[in-house]
């Protein structure tokens, strides 16, 4: 048994230095086969070894039997963006075997199941056929489990080849199986068998090696949706209505999982929150409008098609000044698009959503920690401004595992905004000398005071509607009343600026250009900047975290003549929003945008910027 297909390729591996903690592995499998557990185990074990790592799942929109790729990038410097080529592939899917080889760097390694009888097309790779069936037979498990556990074979072989620590693997499995000994041991047994087989049969090849570090110490690993759900729980979420849709679903599903843990009275079994799976997204957002109006911290999570269905109700929420939070975990659109692939294509759609003059507050979390942070902060902003807030995450951020610092407990008390209860109405009148009116702007910030249903003060009730109304919530078609009200709503957007999270700005000395991005492209942009700097192109970088833009954004835009706007969509949507907000600087912005379902790579960003710089 050798690591080559004996009769087809030269056995000489090019001499080179081992690559340590800096390579990428892709697992090519079919979905529904249980490979997710194996892949996550590898990811977590590497993380446990203290080595920076990231994982991205490229999966099909079906349940079982189609090609799936899981890519793990190991990078000692902490780069976590997608790379375009793999150093190692674990090729388990005969259907894609030949194409999968195309994505391996010269000199890379190919682990594959030896029942794939195809002839590899490349001779510059090292092949490791694995006797999966044979090895699995040697383990004592029920036939039903066999299929699932077979995926552990490649974990074992890989562990031996690149040096994954066995204790780290055990820790990963224990985490995955929530400490249940049985599955942990079964899977470990399979891994050991494979490991031992590899040790006995394979030639050592130190091309790619893992070496323990301390770079992940104290860090955590989470997907953005779970982080967002937890953040929302710390934000005191009280009402959740949702309708299943990829990649939004796992956010409410994390709420279903964690709310009982953190917000149910263990003794009485009483819950101080409600989760409703609605009949569709119109109903979900309708419930939020009702709940937000009623004074609850209300949220949903959805994706493109669901968001589009929410258009009418969000217009009402904007106009009737109802706080609520929508997480739009973006996938590729328009229409059903690529439901299991990532994009940043809903920016302008959200900005201008619906008929009439609306503007929606947007938050752009750029990493898993910000998902947590905006999870609670979004409520503060929504309630303070009495407006819907749309948080634009994406599939890559929301569904993939990311390293991050531990979640931080909110650093400030909740901001419940301007709410008047029974006694407050008199205080209001005493203080302002005015009769309270639901839409009366006494503070000059555009934000009126609201009362909530259940308030027993006979003067507290008011009539809410999507039609014209005056300061006292009375129906009105008066032209002046309309204009006054709609301009006050615009003023709230001005006010909003002081409640929005500012951008994250990173500068380089003598930067000759700027880069602006939002959200999950951060990792790729960070990496691209360093490599561009190596090529002599120094850049300042601003990652915007919300709209309306704060003053720092104005400043950055004003002070950079040439700004690359990096984003995952066709039309350069962030750039369009910037142009509208900064007409004087509109020509500063350059488009670095594409959408093909994959997270951007640093490589592509570098090439794009280089080619534009050359012009």
């Amino acid at each position, binding site marked *: 048994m050798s690591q080559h297909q004996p009769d087809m390729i030269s056995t000489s591996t090019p001499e080179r230095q081992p690559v340590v903690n800096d390579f990428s592995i892709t697992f090519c499998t079919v979905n529904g086969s249980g490979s997710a557990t194996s892949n996550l185990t590898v990811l977590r074990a590497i993380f446990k070894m203290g080595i920076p790592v990231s994982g991205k799942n490229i999966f099909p929109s079906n349940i079982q039997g189609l090609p799936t790729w899981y890519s793990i990038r190991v990078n000692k410097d902490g780069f976590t963006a997608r790379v375009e080529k793999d150093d190692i592939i674990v090729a388990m899917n005969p259907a894609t075997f030949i194409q999968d080889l195309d994505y391996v760097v010269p000199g890379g390694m190919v682990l594959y199941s030896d029942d794939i009888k195809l002839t590899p097309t490349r001779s510059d790779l090292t092949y490791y056929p694995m006797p999966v069936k044979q090895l699995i037979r040697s383990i004592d498990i029920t036939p039903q489990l066999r299929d699932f556990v077979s995926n552990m074979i490649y974990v074992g072989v890989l562990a031996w080849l690149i040096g994954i620590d066995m204790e780290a693997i055990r820790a990963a499995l224990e985490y995955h199986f929530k400490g249940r000994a049985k599955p942990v041991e079964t899977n470990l047994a399979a891994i050991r068998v494979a490991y031992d087989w590899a040790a006995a049969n394979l030639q050592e090849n130190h091309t790619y090696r893992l070496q323990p570090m301390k770079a992940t110490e104290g860090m955590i690993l989470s997907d953005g949706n779970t982080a967002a759900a937890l953040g929302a729980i710390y934000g005191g979420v009280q009402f959740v209505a949702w309708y299943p849709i990829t990649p939004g679903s796992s956010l409410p599903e994390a709420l279903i999982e964690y709310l009982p843990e953190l917000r149910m009275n263990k003794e009485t079994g009483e819950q101080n929150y*409600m989760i409703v799976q*609605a009949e569709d997204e119109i109903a979900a957002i309708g419930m939020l409008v*009702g709940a937000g109006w*009623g004074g*609850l*911290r209300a949220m949903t999570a959805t994706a493109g098609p669901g968001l589009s269905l929410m258009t009418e109700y969000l217009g009402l929420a904007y106009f009737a000044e109802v706080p609520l939070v929508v997480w739009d975990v973006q996938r590729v659109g328009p229409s059903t698009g690529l439901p299991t692939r990532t994009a940043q294509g809903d920016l302008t759609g959200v900005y201008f959503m619906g008929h009439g003059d609306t503007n929606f507050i947007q938050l752009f979390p750029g990493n898993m920690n910000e998902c947590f942070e905006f999870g609670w902060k979004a409520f503060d902003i929504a309630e303070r401004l009495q407006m819907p807030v749309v948080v634009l995450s994406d599939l890559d951020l929301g569904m993939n595992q990311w390293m991050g610092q531990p979640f931080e407990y909110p650093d400030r008390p909740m901001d419940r905004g301007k709410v008047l209860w029974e006694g407050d109405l008199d205080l209001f009148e005493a203080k302002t000398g005015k009769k309270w009116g639901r839409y009366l702007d006494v503070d000059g910030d555009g934000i009126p005071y609201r009362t909530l249903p*259940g308030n027993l003060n006979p003067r507290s009730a008011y009539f809410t509607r999507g039609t014209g109304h005056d300061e006292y919530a009375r129906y009105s078609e008066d032209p002046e009343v309309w204009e006054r009200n709609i301009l006050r709503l615009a003023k709230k957007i001005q006010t909003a600026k002081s409640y929005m999270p500012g951008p994250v700005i990173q500068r380089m000395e003598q930067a000759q250009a700027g880069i602006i991005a939002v959200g999950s492209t951060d990792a790729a942009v960070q990496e691209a900047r360093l490599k561009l700097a190596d090529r002599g192109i120094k850049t300042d970088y601003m990652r915007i975290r919300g709209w309306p833009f704060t003053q720092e954004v104005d400043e950055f835009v004003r002070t950079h003549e040439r700004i690359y706007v990096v984003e995952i969509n066709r039309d350069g949507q962030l750039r369009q929003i910037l142009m509208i907000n900064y007409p004087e600087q509109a020509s500063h912005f350059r488009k670095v945008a594409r959408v093909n379902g994959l997270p951007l790579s640093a490589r592509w960003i570098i090439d794009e910027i280089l080619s534009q710089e050359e012009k």
Partner: protein
Amino acid sequence: MTTVDAQTGINKVGLSRADYKGLPSTLCQGCGHNAISNQIIAAMYELDVIPEKIVKFSGIGCSSKSPAYFLNRSFSFNGLHGRMPSMALGTLFADMTLKGIGVSGDGDTASIGLGQFKHLIRRNLPMVYIVENNGVYGLTKGQFSATAEKGLTLKHEGTNLFLPVDICLEALASNATFVARSFAGDPKQVKELIKAAISHRGVAVLDIISPCVTFNNKDDTIHSYVFGKEHEVRLHDLIFTPARDMLTIEDFAEGDTRDVELYDGSMITLHKLGTDYDPRDRQAAFKVLEEARVKRELLTGLIYVNPDEPSIFDLYKFPEKPFNRMTEQEIRPPSETIRMVNEWMFSA
């Protein structure tokens, strides 16, 4: 059988009828919807309801405007066309001690809103859901709604060729726990049904034929006053007695009546008219609806009730304090917990 002081006109909670009024109606004179608003006012006044304990909801349409014309002292949300149910659900979770009154139209409920209507019923949210059913879109000036009778001809629209949606049948099919039909021209029945509805444990659907005098009131059409007057067939005469008045309950000849006790102990007394109809029998309900349809009768009364089915509020354990009065301490987990949460995240 009210507890209003005959002299002062003040009820048990210290309010006069005026305290239950709304703004002057801007609907057409003679519109059935106004008649219904008046009965809501009367019912709430006579039941000693605290107006602040009611929240009003509506969709869009002439009917959906009417919450402005009753219970000025109650909060109200006039939302979107056909989508009131979802909104009502969200709000009623904000304070589960409140009771919702929703007013919708036949267009609002049976055309655009059919899905939300039926899913609301499925969830059995405790609220009164009134459909002011005139077979037509009033506010947009006289197009067919989905409850328009087959063969109805309207000025700009031609003739309706499709069978009507039957609101009560739809409610029944969705396992509604309280289904009644009435007629704006039968104010007493409307009032008693509203009283019973507000005391019901879950969603109470009232399909009230409410003529649109401007666009659909020709004498021979089923949604007109004249037709209603001529073709109304009451299943029973019905009197509602609130739980607190049970001592004063009137005595009727044994065998003449049938009582339905609601979850809160209040009682609906049904005086037989003709056959002895049992509104707890779901199959019978399907049957009388079908028969009335065939006979082209306006069958009114309490068609079905299941007083015991748990409402959505009963399916979970909630604290007594209204959600919307909870403090930060109650809804933000304590800072100690964050450590544990981070441990859940495979912290290294």
